[in-house]
């Protein structure tokens, strides 16, 4: 299995959240993302800062994808195609 790029890992995390009715707790998200806790925290912090994910406090921390996050998923293939085309 090839190593996932950062762009792909972000897509996977957003995808997991989105496929769980856009609402998931942190522990199953870490498990499903196939990342170590340290690496997950790094990406998670970045996604929150960039405004792709949002954290809500209900009965615990619930994570949802924002509009920007959905746009990322929608444009993912364009992003990958562009990066490949120009070897960026």
């Amino acid at each position: 299995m090839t190593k996932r790029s950062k762009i792909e890992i972000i897509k996977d995390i957003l995808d997991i959240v989105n496929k769980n009715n856009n609402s998931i707790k942190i522990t199953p998200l870490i498990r499903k993302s196939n990342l170590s806790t340290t690496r997950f925290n790094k990406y998670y912090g970045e996604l929150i800062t960039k405004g792709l994910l949002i954290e809500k406090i209900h009965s615990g921390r619930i994570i949802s994808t924002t509009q920007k996050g959905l746009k990322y998923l929608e444009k993912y293939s364009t992003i990958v195609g562009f990066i490949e085309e120009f070897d960026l």
Partner: protein
Amino acid sequence: MAPVQGMGREMINYLAQASINTELLYSFVIIFVSLMIYFGTKDLYELTNHKGIKYFRLSFLFFAVSIFIRSILKFLFLFIDPRTIREIVFNLNVINPIILFLFMYFSAMAIFSLLYSVMCKKWNGKCNLILILNIVAVIIALISVVSGSSTIIFGIYLFLLLFVAFITFMAYKESKNKKKKINLYTVYILLSAFWILNIIDILVPNVLQAFQLIIYFVSISIFLSILYKVLRKLGSN
């Protein structure tokens, strides 16, 4: 004798007007194409913060800025008609060297940013390379403004072109899909080569005048081909 002189003057006016129109059209097309690439990729960068996309976009912003400054310089030169760089620097006091410096800086940075966009995956985390490239661009700009010798200017740009070719070759060697990437790297080398010819055209007047239209035509074709690639990728998905 008077009618001949009158006709001669008319001819000169006509040629000057044609030269201004060509310059205006050329600048407009390059600025328009560069800004289209810059703004067209804004979304992709805002979503990803990808370093490669950032410097790819910046490079076209720098191309647009430098061609804008180039047009200002061209018009100043057209009316002042300098023979050499030294004359340009001394005749136009302070303003022109500053404009010339900015033009040279942005031109060099446009080429460096394009290189960095391709190589940043490999160079990632290495001692502020973009800062070093900025310093090199400032040095190139200073030498171009201060030095009066066209030999030195040719030397600098020959070295710069060889540097671009070397880095591009290294990137090509390491790319996964060599067959697909050869077109891209050829376009990048051609872009750098023609951009350097554009710079020489402004710094050493009259040297490339005979080839000016060809340089303009090829430069526009290269920019349009990159825009086509960008639009195809942005639109295809």
